[in-house]
């Protein structure tokens, strides 16, 4: 049954409904594959028993005609989502032994839609990183390799485990979260579709917070249709999250019907960054050609404040994180390292419990919020953020969607940018502005680099217009015919 794990969610769904396949078989195939793919380190916690029990329950519902959107589909859950009764770590030592007594809204929605949990996917610690190398549970390996080179590559981050699992066929899809590119960049590095929805589309309740005003949950899948199916199940208004938006959830799969004739897509001139490899530029041109072929019209646009996006992000995100992570103090749950006083206990617990990148961002965040620096850093960054959002508002007067590359490079080797946080942060140069503006963005696999690594194209939509993103992404997907599989995956 080696081919079972190659099915897309849509294919498996149809086979399950037609009773050609049971969720038990499908899930077992994934559990078996997980056993053979341990070197990827894609999962922090595997839950095969739970998966098989959920699969059997799904089979029962399928037998009685159940047609829930994801009935019987095995998924990986980024270990940032709290799952009731299953260890939830955020890939941090500080959450040692934390088993939530509650279920995040997004995962609860998925289980309601019949999905099956295979396990908790690895990630950068507290979702801080672009390479999945900051996890307390060790780095995740990208299933892809450069031609003729077996050096392990990063899967991207922070949702590196999610992406590696889906690429390696040890999950049909995965939940992920995106604060500055953490869904789209790993999707791009692993040859997958990754969608960051509009801020407020999915509930943040029960997701370990990194930067509250930027965090948003979304799916990583192998096809655009699968992403549409998953988002439909994940999204929705939640009264428990004040920033979730009370809007009905459209049928995203329906959005794939129809064409893009006459649609205007913007090409922002500011996204031609210095030192961008020629093959990325070439891929972008290819994307423009594909959309033109499908009847859409390219429009030159300007997003003049783009160059301020990264510095702005690296003030706002750490500022919020420094406050969000204050609750990890050793008092109520997780790790506690003894100290002779309360302050000593805090210092010992947080010093040992947080990794280097998390400590760096907590320090940066604390600094930019401090008396005397607040105006110069945090307040100014908030003003810049408003200007960046306005850039997009202005751009959407001229176009319906924006096309850019997802990342300025393909996946790099583990350890390659480890000494230079700035070089690492540059990975997110195209994705970060989207989070700052709260807009939806999707990465679609569009080709391979000269070294044989996947490259993604990035579409940015209007707020709450995920439907246009899916439709245009579908066009790119059809044109790109991306069928390459990671060399480490058999079959």
């Amino acid at each position: 049954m080696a081919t079972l794990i190659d099915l897309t969610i849509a294919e498996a769904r149809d086979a399950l409904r037609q009773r050609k396949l049971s969720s038990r078989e499908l899930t077992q195939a994934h559990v078996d594959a997980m056993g053979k793919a341990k070197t990827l380190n894609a999962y922090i916690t595997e839950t095969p028993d739970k998966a098989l029990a959920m699969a059997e329950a799904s089979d029962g519902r399928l037998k009685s005609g159940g047609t829930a959107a994801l009935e019987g589909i095995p998924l990986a859950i980024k270990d940032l989502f709290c799952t009731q009764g299953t260890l939830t770590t955020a890939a941090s030592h500080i959450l040692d032994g934390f088993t939530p007594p509650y279920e995040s809204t997004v995962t609860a929605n998925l289980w309601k839609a019949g999905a099956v949990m295979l396990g908790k996917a690895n990630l950068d610690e507290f979702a801080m990183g672009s390479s999945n190398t900051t996890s307390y549970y060790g780095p995740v390996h990208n299933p892809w390799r450069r031609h003729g080179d077996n050096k392990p590559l990063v899967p991207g981050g922070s949702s590196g485990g999610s992406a590696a699992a889906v690429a390696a066929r040890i999950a049909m899809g995965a939940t992920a979260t995106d604060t500055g590119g953490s869904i789209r960049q790993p999707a791009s590095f692993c040859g997958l579709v990754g969608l960051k929805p509009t801020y407020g589309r999915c509930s943040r309740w029960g997701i370990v917070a990194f930067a509250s005003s930027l965090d948003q949950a979304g799916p990583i899948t192998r096809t655009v249709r699968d992403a549409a199916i998953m988002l439909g199940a994940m999204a929705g208004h939640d009264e428990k999250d004040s920033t979730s938006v009370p809007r009905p959830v459209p049928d995203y799969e329906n959005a794939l019907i129809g064409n893009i004739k006459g649609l205007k897509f913007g090409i922002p001139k500011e996204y031609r960054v210095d030192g961008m490899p020629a093959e990325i530029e070439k891929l972008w041109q290819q994307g423009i050609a594909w959309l033109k072929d499908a009847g859409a019209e390219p429009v030159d646009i300007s997003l003049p404040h783009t160059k301020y996006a990264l510095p702005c992000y690296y003030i706002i995100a750490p500022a919020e994180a420094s406050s969000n992570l204050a609750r990890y103090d050793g008092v109520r749950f997780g790790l506690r390292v003894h100290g002779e006083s309360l302050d000593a206990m805090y210092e010992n617990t947080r010093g040992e419990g947080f990794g280097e990148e998390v400590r760096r961002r907590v320090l940066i965040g604390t600094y930019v919020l401090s008396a005397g620096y607040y105006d110069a850093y945090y307040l100014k960054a908030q003003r810049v953020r408003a200007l960046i959002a306005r850039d997009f508002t202005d751009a959407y007067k001229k176009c319906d969607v924006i096309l850019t590359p997802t990342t300025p490079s393909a996946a790099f080797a583990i350890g390659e940018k480890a000494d230079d946080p700035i070089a690492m942060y540059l990975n997110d140069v195209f994705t970060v502005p989207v989070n700052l503006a709260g807009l939806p963005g999707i990465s679609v696999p569009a080709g391979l680099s000269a070294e044989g690594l996947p490259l993604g194209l990035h579409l940015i939509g209007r707020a709450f217009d995920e439907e246009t993103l899916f439709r245009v992404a579908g066009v790119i997907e059809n044109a790109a015919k991306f069928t390459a599989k990671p060399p480490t995956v058999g079959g």
Partner: protein
Amino acid sequence: MLIEGKTGNWEIVIGLEVHAQVISNAKLFSGAATAFGAEPNTQVSFVDAAFPGMLPVINRFCVEQAVKTGLGLGAQINLVSVFDRKNYFYADLPSGYQISQYTRPIVGKGQLTVDLADGTSREIGITRLHLEQDAGKSLHDQHATKTYVDLNRSGVALMEIVSEPDLRSPEEAGAYLRKLRAILRYLGTCDGNMEEGSMRCDANVSVRKQGTTAYGTRCEIKNVNSVRFVMQAIEYEARRQVEVIEDGGTIDQETRLFDTQRGVTRTMRSKEHAHDYRYFPDPDLLPLVLDGKWVDGLKANLPELPDAKKQRFVRDYKLTPADADVLVAEKNVCEYFELVAKDRDAKLAANWVISELFAVLNKQGLDISDSPVSASSLGGLLDLIENATISGRIAKDVFALMLETGKEAAAIVEEKGLKQVTDIGAIEKAVDAVIAANADKVAQIKGGNVKLVGWFVGQVMKSTGGKANPGIVNDILKIKLGS
């Protein structure tokens, strides 16, 4: 009030910050309950305990309570306000930050009138009122080496009400607190119970030479838990500051604690150790936007507040301002009084509540809500006076019996035969008897000594055991004596 120092007179400048716990069944950002005195950690949601991924959701009722309070203080209601995070580490602050309002509070400038003992009043400015969460409680006295944490209070809604530095004496500060507490109780937005900690006060105190206008360096006295202690703490602190300055020292801006045992303030935290709270807007909460019409609706349905009640009592009931002040100071006194005064002689009701009832309550150390004589029972007694069943003098005896026995006035009057004699025939008989026995005095009256009529009234009352209606006795005597 001025402090006489060695170098001249000093003026005290006081501003008060009051933390008033909002009356609400649920916390400010979680659905957990808020009842006082529950077993530790039984009223805690995962939000209050700051578990990973938990998010705050504003409690609409707490917002309504804050707006009502703002309206009660005649203050500006800000239709857009923002919740900020105040960051600091402590074991009873689970999230490591308190959600508060910093730059954009829900209520802006207002004012409050304080009434002073000499009959004068002063307007005290209110700077702002904002909503914030309370922290939990650290219990240091449960174990020799450990601190226990009770999170029942964590997340309970507080209103922080900040005054301008307009107060000039401990007396004014006390009057401000009592007036504020009365308003909160009238509005039903805070129970004002300082002993249980549902109203707490921080006092900012500085001194300056009489006639100068620049403010001196202030000290903040934290968390004082009774009106009396606030007044004592201010008095002590002001005198301490004068002494320090006159001895050539300077006042350090610092946070101080009031030691209620010794009646002194002492340093808690110096300015160098002041927290940097790193305030920033809470990204988990959208700005709080109020509908102007909703606010207008609350305003229209606001209950009558102490100042308005006082005016009405003086205007409609013809009470003296001093009596009205006494009656409106406490909501439950006022409610009691209005029940007694309803459809009765209000001045009579006021006299009875203020002199007779208060004397008993003071003596027995009771609150009016625990009064041994209910408002309707007291009203029943006043009815007997008003319809001339008993005289005012007998009424006092009846009142004493009511306290003693718990019986209604009418029953006591009936039982003891205290009913006033209004039977003209019977009174005439008594009058005739007194006249017959005092022919000499009758002669004197006829001779022009009209004052003696009063003596005859007294004699008749005496012979009837005080039960004769004095008005009728008077009328009959006048006829019989031809005066």
